[in-house]
C-alpha cells in the first residue's frame, strides 16, 4: 500500500535502468504503487518535480539526486519533505551525512561515490604490478595511460578521474615503480572528456581512434593503459583498439582497459579477454534495499527492519551497497 | 505552341472564353467582392479598372485558385471550373502576372521560369538544364527580350527586368487566359511598348487577356473592353472605343475628375536647399552625379530602367554606401550615413519596392504609420502615448483616403495601392523638408494620385522640396518644375518641365546606354 514517487537523475543511464527494472518489480511485489520521474540530468527539473510531488501529497519520496556533493540542494529537498512530513529515501547518487541526519525519516541507500574511483585505481595498480614489464610496451619503465572522463562537471566523474589515477599511483610508487604518465604531455588536464556529458561509448571511440593515429607501437609511444569513468567509454576505447588490430584476444597485443559499472557488455569483454576489469555495483541488491526501506517507512516501522544482512547500515543513516572489483567470473 | 493556338481558335468562334458569375468573397471585416461578373472574349484584351481596394486583385486571385470564392461560378471554355490551387489553374490554361513581384530571388532566371514544371531528361528522373536553357532562350527570342541571361540570379537584376521575366514566365505557359495585374507599375516606357507588342501578339493568337492597370493611357491604347468595379461591386462593362478617360474615371470614382494634375499656384524660390556634388556609389554604377535642389522645388528624375535613379536616391538617403560625393543642406555639409541620420536632417524617402523595403506586413496600420516619426509620440521622452499615435494614424488614413476597416488591420490585408498610401502617410508625418520619392504613385488609382500630387504640391508651396523618380513621363511633366535625366548611372542632362517634350527626355535617357 502507499504511493511512492521515484526521481531518477537520468532515465537514459544504463546502470540505473537495471536498478529501475529491479526496483519496479520489488515495489510491485510489496504492493507499493510508484511513479518514475526523469530529471533529465538537470537538478532544477528534479527539484521542481519533488516540490510538485510534495504538493500532490505522495506517501514517499525516493530520490536519485542529480547533483551530488552540493549540500545546499539536498538540504532543500530534505527541508521540503520534512515540512510536509513525507519520508525520504535517497539512493545511488551520494548525499552527505549531515543532510540525511537532519530528518529522522530520511535515509540513503548506496555507496560512497568516491569508492568506485578509488577501487578502480587500486585495481589498476595491482593489475599492472602483476606483470609490469609486459604492460610497459616501449620498455621505458613508465606506463603511459589515457583517461576518459564522462562529464566535465559531474562530481562522480571528477572523483573517478582523480582517484582512478591517484590510487593506482599510490600502489605503484609503494612498489618502487614510477607513477603513471598521461600519454600526451601537452595535455594539462590529463583526461579527455565527453563534451556532451553523456559518458558515451562513441565519444571514447572517436578519441581513441584519433589517439591511435598518432601513438603507435612503431613510434614507441603507444598508449599502454586505458582508464575510463564507466564501461561504456572503456568499451568505446576497446572498439577503437580492435579496429587497429589490438585487444582481439589470444595472439594480439592487448592493452589493459578498465571501466566501472560491470555492464553485461563489459562482462562479456572481460570474459573474452578484451578488457581488464571493472567495478561492480549491485543493481538488484540496491533495488531490494530501497524497496525494503521504503515499505518500512510507509508503514511507519523501523526503517532498517528486515534488511538483507549483506548490507551494512552505517551510523544509522546509510545502507551501504558494496562495490566489488570484477575481473571475470 | 502552334497546336495550342489552333485549339483556341477552333470551336465556336464567338463563344466567350471566360465567364465569371456572381463572385463574392469576404475577409474578416470586409466584403471584398459582392456578386461580381466578368466575361472575357477570345482574342481580346479586357481591362479591369477600379480604385485601390475595389477588389480587382481579389477577383483574379479567386480565379487563379489563391483565394477560395465564397459564392459564384466560373466557366472556362464553357466548362465550369473551380481551381483549388494555382497548379490547377495553370494546368487548365490560366496564367497570371501577380501584382506584387513574387519570385525565388536566390534562384536563376530559368529556374524561376520553369518552376513547378521542370523539363526532365528522357527516361531519367533528372531535370534537363540544357533544355531549360534552350527553352528559355526560345521564349525570350519570341518575346524579343534580348538583354537577360537565363542563368542570372534573380536578386541581382533590376526590378524592371525581373518584371519582364515574370511576364515571360506567364506567357510561356501558353495559356488561354492570361491575367496581368498591374504589369507596368515597375516598367519604363521602353519596356511598356515591348509588353504591348507582346500582348497584341497574344491577342492575335486568340488568348483572352485580363489587364489591370491604373495608367489610363495604357487602358485606352491596349484594351478592347473595359470592366469597371467600385467597392467590391460591378459597375459596368463597355467597349473601350466607346469610352473616354474622363468617363472611366467617373465610373471608377463615382464623381467627375476634371484635371489629372492639380494646378500649380506658387513659385519656386531661388534659395538652394540641397546641393549634391559628384555622388558616386560604392556598389553600383551610379557615377558622379551633381545637382542642386531649390526650396519649394519639385524635381523629377527620368531615365530608363537601370539608369541608376533608385541608386541616386538611395545614396542620398543613406541606404546605399557612397564611394565619394558631398552634400550640403542649406549650405551646411551633411553626410547621411544612414537613413536615421537622413531623417534627422529632414529627409524622407518612399522606396521603390514596397514589399521588400516598405511595409511591415505583419504589423497593423498604426504601427506602420508611426514608425518613422515614433519619437514624436513620447510623453516626457519616456513612454509612448497611444492617443497621440492613434490621432496621427487617423490623420493619415483620412488625408491619404486609405480604405481600411480599422487602424488595427494588418497592412498586408490592404490592397496594394492602399499599402502605398500608408507608407506615404508614414513619411508625411515626419514633416520632411526634402522628400525623396521613388515611383511614389506606383499602383495608385487616379483619384488617389491626384490627392498625392496635391500633397506634394502643398509641401512645395510651404517651401519644402521634393525629388521624384518616376517612369511615367506624363506624371513628371505634369507636376515637376525641373527634370533631371539619367542614363547609365550618369546624369545625362537637365530639362525644364514646362518647355521640354517626351522626345527630348527619351533622347537624353539613351545617351549613355
Amino acid at each position: 500500500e502507499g504511493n511512492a514517487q521515484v526521481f531518477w537523475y537520468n532515465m537514459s543511464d544504463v546502470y540505473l535502468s537495471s536498478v529501475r527494472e529491479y526496483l519496479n518489480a520489488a515495489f510491485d511485489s510489496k504492493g507499493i504503487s510508484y511513479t518514475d520521474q526523469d530529471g533529465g540530468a538537470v537538478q532544477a527539473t528534479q527539484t521542481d518535480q519533488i516540490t510538485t510531488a510534495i504538493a500532490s501529497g505522495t506517501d514517499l519520496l525516493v530520490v536519485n539526486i542529480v547533483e551530488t556533493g552540493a549540500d545546499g540542494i539536498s538540504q532543500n529537498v530534505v527541508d521540503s519533505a520534512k515540512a510536509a512530513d513525507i519520508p525520504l529515501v535517497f539512493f545511488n547518487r551520494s548525499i552527505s551525512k549531515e543532510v540525511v541526519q537532519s530528518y529522522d525519516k530520511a535515509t540513503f541507500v548506496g555507496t560512497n561515490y568516491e569508492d568506485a574511483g578509488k577501487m578502480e585505481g587500486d585495481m589498476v595498480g595491482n593489475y599492472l604490478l602483476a606483470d609490469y614489464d609486459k604492460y610497459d610496451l616501449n620498455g621505458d619503465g613508465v606506463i603511459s595511460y589515457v583517461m576518459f572522463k564522462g562529464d566535465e562537471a559531474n562530481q562522480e566523474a571528477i572523483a573517478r578521474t582523480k582517484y582512478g589515477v591517484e590510487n593506482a599511483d599510490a600502489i605503484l610508487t609503494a612498489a618502487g615503480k614510477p607513477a603513471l604518465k598521461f600519454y600526451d604531455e601537452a595535455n594539462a588536464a590529463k583526461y579527455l572528456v565527453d563534451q556532451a556529458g553523456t559518458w558515451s561509448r562513441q565519444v571514447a571511440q572517436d578519441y581513441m581512434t584519433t589517439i591511435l593515429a598518432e601513438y603507435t607501437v612503431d613510434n614507441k609511444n603507444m598508449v599502454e593503459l586505458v582508464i575510463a569513468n564507466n564501461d561504456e567509454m572503456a568499451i568505446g576505447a576497446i572498439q577503437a583498439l580492435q579496429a587497429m588490430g589490438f585487444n582481439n584476444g589470444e595472439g594480439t597485443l592487448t592493452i589493459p582497459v578498465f571501466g566501472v559499472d560491470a555492464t553485461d557488455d563489459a562482462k562479456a569483454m572481460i570474459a573474452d579477454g578484451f578488457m581488464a576489469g571493472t567495478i561492480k555495483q549491485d543493481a538488484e541488491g540496491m533495488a531490494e534495499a530501497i524497496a525494503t526501506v521504503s515499505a518500512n517507512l510507509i508503514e511507519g516501522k523501523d526503517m532498517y527492519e528486515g534488511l538483507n544482512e549483506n548490507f551494512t547500515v552505517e551510523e544509522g543513516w546509510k545502507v551501504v551497497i558494496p562495490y566489488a572489483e570484477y575481473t571475470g567470473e | 505552341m502552334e497546336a495550342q493556338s489552333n485549339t483556341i481558335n477552333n470551336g465556336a468562334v464567338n463563344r466567350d472564353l471566360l465567364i465569371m458569375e456572381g463572385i463574392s468573397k469576404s475577409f474578416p471585416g470586409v466584403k471584398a467582392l459582392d456578386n461580381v461578373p466578368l466575361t472575357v472574349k477570345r482574342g481580346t484584351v479586357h481591362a479591369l479598372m477600379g480604385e485601390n481596394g475595389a477588389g480587382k486583385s481579389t477577383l483574379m486571385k479567386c480565379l487563379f485558385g489563391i483565394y477560395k470564392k465564397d459564392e459564384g461560378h466560373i466557366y472556362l471554355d464553357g466548362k465550369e471550373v473551380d481551381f483549388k490551387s494555382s497548379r490547377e489553374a495553370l494546368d487548365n490554361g490560366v496564367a497570371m502576372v501577380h501584382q506584387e513581384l513574387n519570385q525565388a530571388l536566390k534562384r536563376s532566371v530559368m529556374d524561376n521560369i520553369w518552376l513547378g514544371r521542370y523539363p526532365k531528361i528522357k527516361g531519367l528522373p533528372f531535370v534537363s538544364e540544357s533544355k531549360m536553357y534552350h527553352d528559355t532562350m526560345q521564349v525570350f527570342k519570341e518575346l524579343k527580350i534580348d538583354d537577360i541571361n537565363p542563368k542570372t540570379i534573380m536578386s541581382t537584376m533590376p526590378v524592371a527586368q525581373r518584371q519582364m521575366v515574370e511576364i515571360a514566365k506567364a506567357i510561356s505557359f501558353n495559356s488561354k487566359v492570361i491575367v496581368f495585374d498591374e504589369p507596368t507599375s515597375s516598367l519604363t516606357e521602353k519596356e511598356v511598348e515591348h509588353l504591348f507588342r507582346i500582348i497584341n501578339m497574344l491577342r492575335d493568337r486568340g488568348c483572352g487577356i485580363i489587364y489591370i492597370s491604373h495608367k489610363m493611357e495604357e487602358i485606352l491604347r491596349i484594351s478592347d473592353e473595359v470592366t469597371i468595379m467600385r467597392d467590391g461591386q460591378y459597375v459596368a462593362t463597355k467597349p473601350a472605343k466607346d469610352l473616354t478617360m474622363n468617363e472611366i474615371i467617373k465610373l471608377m470614382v463615382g464623381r467627375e475628375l476634371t484635371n489629372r494634375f492639380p494646378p500649380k499656384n506658387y513659385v519656386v524660390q531661388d534659395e538652394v536647399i540641397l546641393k549634391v556634388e559628384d555622388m558616386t556609389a560604392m556598389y553600383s554604377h551610379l557615377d558622379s552625379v551633381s545637382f542642386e535642389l531649390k526650396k519649394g522645388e519639385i524635381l523629377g528624375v527620368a531615365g530608363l530602367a537601370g539608369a541608376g535613379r533608385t541608386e541616386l536616391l538611395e545614396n542620398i538617403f543613406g541606404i546605399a554606401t557612397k564611394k565619394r560625393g558631398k552634400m550640403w543642406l542649406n549650405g551646411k555639409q551633411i553626410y547621411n550615413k544612414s537613413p536615421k541620420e537622413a531623417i534627422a536632417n529632414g529627409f524622407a524617402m518612399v522606396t521603390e519596392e514596397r514589399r521588400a523595403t516598405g511595409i511591415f506586413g505583419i504589423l497593423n496600420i498604426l504601427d506602420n504609420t508611426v514608425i518613422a516619426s515614433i519619437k514624436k509620440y513620447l510623453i516626457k521622452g519616456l513612454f509612448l502615448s497611444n492617443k497621440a499615435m492613434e490621432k496621427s494614424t487617423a490623420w493619415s488614413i483620412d488625408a491619404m483616403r486609405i480604405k481600411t476597416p480599422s487602424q488595427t488591420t494588418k497592412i498586408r490585408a490592404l490592397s496594394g495601392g492602399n499599402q502605398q498610401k500608408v507608407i506615404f502617410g508614414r513619411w508625411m508625418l515626419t514633416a520632411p523638408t526634402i522628400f525623396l520619392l521613388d515611383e511614389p504613385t506606383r499602383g495608385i488609382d487616379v483619384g488617389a494620385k491626384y490627392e498625392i500630387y496635391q500633397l506634394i504640391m502643398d509641401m512645395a508651396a510651404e517651401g519644402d522640396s521634393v525629388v521624384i523618380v518616376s517612369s511615367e513621363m506624363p506624371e513628371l511633366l505634369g507636376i515637376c518644375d525641373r527634370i533631371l535625366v539619367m542614363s547609365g548611372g550618369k546624369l545625362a542632362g537637365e530639362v525644364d518641365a514646362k518647355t521640354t517634350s517626351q522626345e527630348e527626355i527619351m533622347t537624353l535617357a539613351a545617351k549613355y546606354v
Partner: protein
Amino acid sequence: MSEINKPKKGIAKKIDDFKALNGKDKASFIGNWLLDRAMIIIILLLVLYIQSVKPAFLATASIVNIISLTATRLPIALGIAGAIILTGTDLSAGRIVGLSAFVAAILLQKGDFAGRFLKDGNPWPIFVVILIVVAVGAIVGLVNGFCVAKFKLHPFIVTLSTQLITYGAYLTISSAKQISQLDTSFTENFVTKKIFYIGKQVAVKDGVEKVINPGTPVMLYVFLAVIFAVVMWFIWNKTTFGKNMFAVGSNEEAARVSGVNVTLVIIGVFVLAGASYGYTGFIEAARQGASTGTTGLNYELDAIAACVIGGVSFVGGIGKISGVVLGVILMQLIMTGMTFLGISGNTTYIIKGAVILIACAIDMRKYLAKK
C-alpha cells in the same frame, strides 16, 4: 444628440453586432472567438481534468506551487521572446543562467564557510550582486547581439557558439566546483523570503496568538517576477525601443529605411534577454541554494516552447507579454499536472511533446491568413 441615437459601446454594442449576423456568420464568429482564446481554454480544460482526477490539484498549496514555478521560468521566457520576435532564437540562455548563478553564488557564499570559493571575505551586498549578475548576462547578450547584427549571422549559430563559450568560461573559472552554503541574506532573507501566507489561521486564546494552520507561504521571487513582467510589458508596448523591435522583426530592411537603428535594436534585444537570464541565474542560485554545472541547462528549450505556445511567432514581429505568460503557465501545468496524475517519466516526454505540438497548432490557426 439624443440619448437613443448615441452609439452603444462596449459589450452592449458587441451583442448588437452579434445579433446582426446571420446563422453561418454567427457560427464562424463564435468559432473565431473561441480560437482567439484557445490558449486559455486549453489551460482551463487541462486544469478541470486534472482537478477532477486529483482534487488536491486546486488546493492552495498546489496553486501556490504552480505560481512559484511559473515565476521562476517567466523572466527567461520573456527575454527569449524578444529574440524570437526578431525571427531569431537564443540557445545560450541556459548556460548564461548557469554562469550567472555561479557568479551570484560565489559572491554570496557564507562568510564563515571554510570551503569558500573566494577565500576569505564576506557576502557582498545583495543589490550590488544583482547588478553584477545582470551585467554578466547582459555582456554575453551583447556578444550575441553584436555578432547577429554586425556579422549578419543567424542567432541560432551565434548563440550555439556562445552557449559553448559561456559553458567553457564557466568551467574554467569554477573548475566545475559546486558552490553551496549561500548566505541567508541572499536565500531566506531575500529571494525565498516568505512574504505572506495564504490560508494561515491564527486563533487568539487568552490574549495569546496561536497559529492553527501555518498556511502556504508566497515568496518574494514571485513578486519580483510579476514586477519583471510589468516592466517588460512597458518596454514592449510603450517605448520606442519596443516598437522598433517589432518593426525590425517584421521587416528589417523596411525598418532600416524608416530610420530605425537596426543594429542597436538587435543588440538591445539580446542584451535585454541576457540581462533576464542573468536575473534568472540569481534567482536560481538562491532557490537551489547552490550553483552547479547543470544549473540552467536546457532552460532555453522550455522557454522557447512557452513563447511559441503563447503566440510569439518565428515569422517575426508577433508576440504579446500576456501570451508568453500563458505559455509559461501552460508548460508548467503540463509538468505539474503529470506529476499529479502519476504519469511516469517516459510517458511524460511523449505527453509534453504532444501538448506543445497541439497547443501550437491550435494557436497558430488564428494567425493563418484564410484562403
